[in-house]
């Protein structure tokens, strides 16, 4: 178990590094962490999911201009909501499930950031978040492409998935 935790912590830092610094330097609308979140919700154990959610929340908050805890709370809410959907509505681990979840998780993440901006506005605290329709669509589209690639790769290496629709 310890080996698994260490490997996941290294992977977590790598994904954070990619999302937060490497892609952010130019492709600011590109946030692959949300795809990883959906992927984990669908295919990993709950202990590992929690490790990623809490770890990523802390890492994003350490270097974010938003008040500390913003990402942690949003990721936890996405995790709880996503888990609920998977347990009650999308029980098949299918490609369509991944597409729908990426759409929902990505949209809700951006809506939460916008809601937080409005909320902070009441306390005269500024938020750097900018709701930009082209950026929103670009982010969702790019994440769907990454999700499709990850699904195809996973399907190639494992028999746990089925390329069917709901």
């Amino acid at each position: 178990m310890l080996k698994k935790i260490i490997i996941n912590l290294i992977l977590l830092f790598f994904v954070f590094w990619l999302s937060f610094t490497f892609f952010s330097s130019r492709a600011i609308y590109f946030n692959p962490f949300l795809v990883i979140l959906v992927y984990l919700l669908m295919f990993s154990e709950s202990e590992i999911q929690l490790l990623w959610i809490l770890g990523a929340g802390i890492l994003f908050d350490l270097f974010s201009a938003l008040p500390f805890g913003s990402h942690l709370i949003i990721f936890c809410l996405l995790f709880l909501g996503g888990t609920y959907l998977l347990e009650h509505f999308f029980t098949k681990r299918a490609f369509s499930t991944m597409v729908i979840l990426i759409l929902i998780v990505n949209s809700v993440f951006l809506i939460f950031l916008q809601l937080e901006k409005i909320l902070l506005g009441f306390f005269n605290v500024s938020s750097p978040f900018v709701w930009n329709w082209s950026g929103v669509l670009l982010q969702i589209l790019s994440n769907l492409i990454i999700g499709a690639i990850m699904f195809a790769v996973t399907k190639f290496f494992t028999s746990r998935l089925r390329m069917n629709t709901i």
Partner: protein
Amino acid sequence: MSHRRTFYIILAIVIILGGHYLGLWRPIERLATRALSYPLTAGYSWGRDFFSFFGRFQNNADLKKENQDLKERTAVLDGEIISLKEALRQKGITDEQLEFLKQEKLKAVLARVITRGVENNPNQLIIDKGARDGIKNGLVILGRGGVVVGRVTRVEDTSAQILLLTDTSVEMGAADVDGGLLGVVKGNKDLSLRLNYVLKEKKITKGDIIITSGEKDLIPAGLLIGEIDQVFEDEREIFKSARLTQPVDVANTDIVSVILF
């Protein structure tokens, strides 16, 4: 199982946030931000280089035409640079800017850009220096060549948020090279830089150098902001405005100086 999981998550959030806001995790947070600072700034820098390299291939078809245009532009710029340097030298904001700052007893902290964040804001930069290094809200940021690129808008212990001048929420008093207060520089929605509230009787023309007018305890006067590119005048308006250009690629900035004032 579901309720138990939710309970543990809430408990974890309470412990993490409680510890943070009570300052219990501060030593760990400092250690973590310091330790992660290098790989993050390196990642930002590599990403910038990677996308620049990739972009070069993408635009390969236009390179020949662009090259010709650039040659012509360079010839014009060479002439402009000579007059620009002369204007700046006279006002003490030339390459010896550090000397100028020393004379004014001003200190600068060199900081590296960690990220532009995940908040979809092209005008945001997070740097690896914070309150511990003497940075406070409102301080001015200089990019390459000593050009003003933005202001500090939020400070954490070991990091700080910068909003570039092109952001609509950032404002800065501007003056001409004679030092006379001219107007307010503010970002425009199209990511360009505007000089607003210029009195109609004030004469401004394309190519005029714009510098900071100074702000008590935050911004020293005389720092280079840019030059006027286009003047907008409307008879019905009390003021006129202008679009500014900056001599540095602000979006490509990865090392900045924070002026401690």
